[in-house]
């Protein structure tokens, strides 16, 4: 399928300076590498929200993958990416889990998504970390939140990455178990349930992580499931690329366009039309907490090379 991804790249690169400002970039600072500005800068929260450490992957993408920009191969980005990974390692609970909303929360969501992001970062720029992730992989292997498919898909990616880094087969098996569960729970309509129902926004997020898993594992049942899920997503999108939040089980307001725009001409056409009319929610519209995640998605959509659709 032809790609017209320049608009995603343009929007993403326009948002990057804002996201870089989230981080403590001062070496020697006790919070060097922390991307939760409310914690390290404003000092109004009493713990660092782990979700902001997904910035590690944003930095790695900018450093290594996004060609022809002012960021490519710039050493500070490499150092900040490593600092973000190190800070993530330092804020884990003793069991390897992480916190999103309050200290000692042990959030499956935060652990799954941030472990996936920091390990993607390590793999993307070749940082020398592997065994440091074992505790988190063990925690993700032993814990589940099957009523929330997107988190399960993120956990599968995190575990697969940690298997790749450590070579420990037990994490590949744990990753496979999460995926098997998702495949079993896929609705005949094609969606993966979120608290028992269909939610187009979270479905697009699950598609993103299932697709990542497929690219790593090459398991054809996953590819088939993603294709079916994309058809289900197609049915929820209006011609301006947006969804009806009132219809979803979690009332999500926006979708993650990548990789669905590559797997469905209809989604691509509708979403690009929405972007042209400024009718879809982009990373620029979101608050700090969710901006990073959608920004990374846009950046992946806009990658010029090395991206398989």
């Amino acid at each position: 399928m032809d790609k017209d991804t320049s608009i995603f790249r343009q929007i993403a690169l326009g948002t990057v300076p804002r996201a870089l400002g989230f981080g403590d970039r001062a070496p020697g600072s006790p919070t060097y590498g922390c991307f939760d500005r409310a914690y390290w800068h404003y000092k109004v929260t009493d713990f660092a929200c782990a979700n902001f450490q997904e910035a590690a992957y944003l930095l790695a993408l900018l450093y290594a993958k996004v060609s022809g920009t002012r960021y490519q191969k710039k050493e500070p980005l490499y150092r900040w990416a490593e600092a973000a990974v190190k800070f993530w390692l330092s804020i884990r609970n003793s069991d390897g889990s992480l916190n999103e909303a309050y200290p000692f929360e042990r959030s499956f969501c935060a652990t799954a998504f941030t472990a996936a992001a920091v390990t993607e970062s390590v793999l993307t720029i070749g940082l020398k970390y592997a065994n440091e992730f074992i505790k988190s992989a063990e925690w993700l292997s032993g814990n589940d939140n099957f009523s929330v498919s997107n988190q399960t898909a993120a956990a599968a990616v995190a575990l697969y990455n940690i298997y790749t880094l450590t070579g420990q087969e037990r994490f590949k098996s744990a990753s496979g178990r999460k995926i098997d569960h998702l495949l079993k729970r896929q609705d005949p309509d094609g969606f993966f349930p979120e608290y028992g129902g269909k939610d187009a926004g979270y479905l697009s997020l699950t598609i993103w992580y299932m697709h990542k898993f497929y690219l790593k594992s090459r398991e054809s049942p996953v590819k088939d499931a993603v294709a079916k899920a994309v058809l289900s997503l197609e049915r929820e999108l209006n011609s301006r690329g947006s969804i009806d939040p009132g219809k979803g089980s979690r009332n999500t307001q926006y979708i993650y366009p990548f990789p669905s725009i590559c797997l469905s001409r209809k989604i691509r056409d509708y979403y690009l039309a929405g972007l042209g009319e400024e009718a879809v929610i982009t990373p620029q519209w979101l608050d700090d907490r969710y901006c990073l995640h959608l920004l990374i998605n846009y950046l992946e959509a806009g990658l010029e090379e090395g991206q398989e659709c």
Partner: protein
Amino acid sequence: MLMTPGKLILLRLFNLSLGRSAFFSRLLRKVLIRLLIKGKKGRYTQCSRYFDIRELEN
């Protein structure tokens, strides 16, 4: 000086008791300004530490 759960508990106890009074609320503000902003090396400035493109040159 980072916020910690202990400090936050103390702050909230103050906010919900003495802090209800305008006098004590203003007093707390004065103490915080003295502690965090005035006469401190590397003093706290809210509108700072945003990304600057020149950082990529280092």
